[in-house]
């Protein structure tokens, strides 16, 4: 990765140590203090020029290399994403506005994202449009010099705390369902928006329904070209192509286990320690598969098959490592788990297990990844 990336890793770990409590499990809990920690940490990163590291310098970033961006992804995910929901704004909302936004939209949104002051939510999925996103029904119907939006979004993370929504809605009926879709940048305070949290096993704030009942939007809210929103969505998905560095948290937790168990580690069933070693191997495998994709992308090569293979490997790793961690936890002595590091380990492993259940569903299900990989395999010349 090179010395710059290594120095960045050290810097990030130091900042996490200084500003994120060891029992931090992410910003999305019932305790508002956790959100406050994430907001403060974002300001620290912004002050250090690390929040929007990957952004071009003209928009306040550092124009960081793909490898530096990888280090940020790894370190943040490994430490329960202390940027909170900001990663969405930084990773893809901001870059998309840079590419498609009007000067007014750029002035309005980019500085606030760069300072970590605003939370966005993504208004894509609907009850009948999940993996088949283009089948969505939320519609923006002409009304005077603008539109009125009617419809329902679902599984919308952070909608309860977001100030803005990156909304995909139908504005016309095209020959293909991918045509006639438009992106709107909509303030969540707009009249007619109602958010209903969905209690779920991942914890609060992760899943919500968002209802749009005649929400007024105008041309000024359109991102990019009217009816051409699908192309923007494709770009958004491309920004997230490598996705979350799930392997980093898996590895950190797996490596923490022997110290937490102390002398008890050697008394664990040999088969379980074998599975632990296997999971560490799979962490390495997923990391190297990610690096291969990143390496190809930084050379301008796009390989949907390699990307899908990585995502299949890393999401399975997430779930399998969670099972191994929970089994280790189940055999750990109560006295070990009463120590602070033991308590944190129990919280982290349990949180990891719950969250990992969604990893093969969220951000492109494993079935979609298999379809993409199969398509690449069966089309490529032998």
């Amino acid at each position: 990765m090179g010395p710059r990336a290594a120095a960045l890793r050290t810097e990030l770990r130091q900042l996490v140590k200084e500003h994120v409590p060891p029992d931090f499990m992410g910003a999305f809990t019932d305790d508002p203090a956790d959100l406050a920690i994430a907001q403060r940490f974002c300001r620290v990163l912004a002050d250090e020029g690390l929040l929007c590291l990957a952004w071009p310098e003209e928009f306040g970033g550092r124009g960081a290399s793909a490898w530096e961006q990888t280090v940020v992804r790894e370190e943040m995910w490994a430490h329960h994403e202390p940027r909170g929901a900001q990663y969405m704004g930084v990773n893809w909302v901001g870059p998309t506005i840079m590419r498609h936004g009007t000067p007014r939209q750029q002035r309005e949104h980019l500085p606030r994202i760069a300072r970590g002051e605003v939370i966005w939510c993504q208004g894509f999925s609907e009850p009948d449009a999940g993996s088949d996103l283009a089948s969505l029904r939320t519609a923006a119907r002409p009304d005077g010099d603008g539109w009125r939006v009617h419809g329902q979004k679902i599984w919308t993370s952070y909608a309860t705390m977001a100030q803005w929504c990156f909304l995909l809605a139908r504005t016309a009926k095209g020959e293909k369902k991918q045509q006639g879709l438009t992106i709107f940048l909509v303030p969540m305070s707009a009249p007619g928006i109602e958010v209903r949290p969905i209690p779920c096993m991942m914890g609060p704030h992760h899943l919500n329904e968002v209802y749009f009942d005649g929400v007024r939007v105008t041309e000024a809210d359109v991102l990019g070209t009217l009816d051409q929103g699908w192309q923007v969505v494709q770009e958004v998905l491309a920004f997230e192509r490598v996705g979350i560095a799930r392997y980093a948290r898996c590895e950190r937790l797996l490596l923490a286990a022997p110290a937490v168990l102390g002398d008890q580690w050697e008394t664990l069933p040999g088969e379980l320690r074998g599975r632990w070693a296997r999971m560490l191997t799979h962490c390495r495998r997923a990391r190297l598969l990610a690096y291969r994709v990143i390496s190809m992308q930084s050379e301008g090569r796009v390989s949907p098959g390699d990307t899908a293979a990585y995502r299949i490997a890393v999401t399975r790793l997430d779930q399998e490592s969670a099972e191994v961690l929970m089994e280790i936890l189940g055999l750990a002595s109560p006295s070990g788990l009463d120590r602070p590091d033991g308590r944190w380990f129990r919280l982290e492993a349990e949180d990891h297990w719950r969250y990992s259940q969604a990893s093969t569903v969220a951000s492109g299900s494993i079935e979609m990844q298999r379809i993409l990989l199969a398509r690449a395999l069966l089309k490529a010349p032998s």
Partner: protein
Amino acid sequence: MNIELSLEALEYGRLAQRALEAAGGDQLVQRAERDPGRRADIMAPVFAELGAWELNPRGDADDLEAAAALCRAAGYWGLGYPVAERLARPADLAADGLVVIAAERPAAAVSGLGLRWTAVTLDGRRSMAVAGDPYGPPRTAAFTAPLDLEPLDDAGAADVALGLVLPCWTLLGMLDRAVDLARGHVLVREQFGQRLSAFQGVQFQLTDAEVERGGVEVLAKYALWSVQAGLPEALDDALALRMAALEAAEVTFRVAHQLHGAIGFCDELPLSWLSRYSQPLRRLPLGLSATRAALASGLGRRGLTGLFSA
């Protein structure tokens, strides 16, 4: 570490694969099985043409990568010949090759070649080894034979990683081929009026195999780099690779057979040969469970080197 082999090594691998194809390809192992006494003669010309035994994988980083590429090409054609083992030969002994052996019942797929072998256990005990009579005809024993050992010394610890890693490159070549064969078959075979490749149940099995194969590819490069750099944890990395390669072989060969259906068991198709001749690589010196246990034991509580290792 570079995520891929050097361009020169990749080119040498392509050259080797073409040369082996021109020399007979799938026919090479079939001829050797029919006439096991001539196995060495059947293979010798093509390896001479490739300058295989002039490679110096222990002394030259470029040659190590070329050796890996050659093993992969040999695996692709399922040669049933100990290419990796010959390339791993020790530098300080008058031996033609090196095999890693289990502490009990040492064996290797090196029968009938008349070569001088060094054997090394996972903990570095070296012996000179002579292959006994094979366990059976090649069709079932795949040239595997017990080894008679003459103990030498305990100086082989540094040999083990290379001795484990290169055969994994051979196995990787076999997985490349198994996926290619499965893919080729489902693209032409029709059932219920459409190609098998149109069925999602078939597609998803193929992706399972490909994810495993691709994972071995990156781990094999990592372990090779670890050997090349002389890292103290090179043995851990080699065992991790071997464990992943053995798991991948289970998945990949199961999928390849399943997608071929009955025709895949027939000797008129290469899969039948490839599958049988993958066996020694997958069982010796340690099978999957024993490899995993050895890895876990070696790692202790420190784990594999990674982002968060001490």
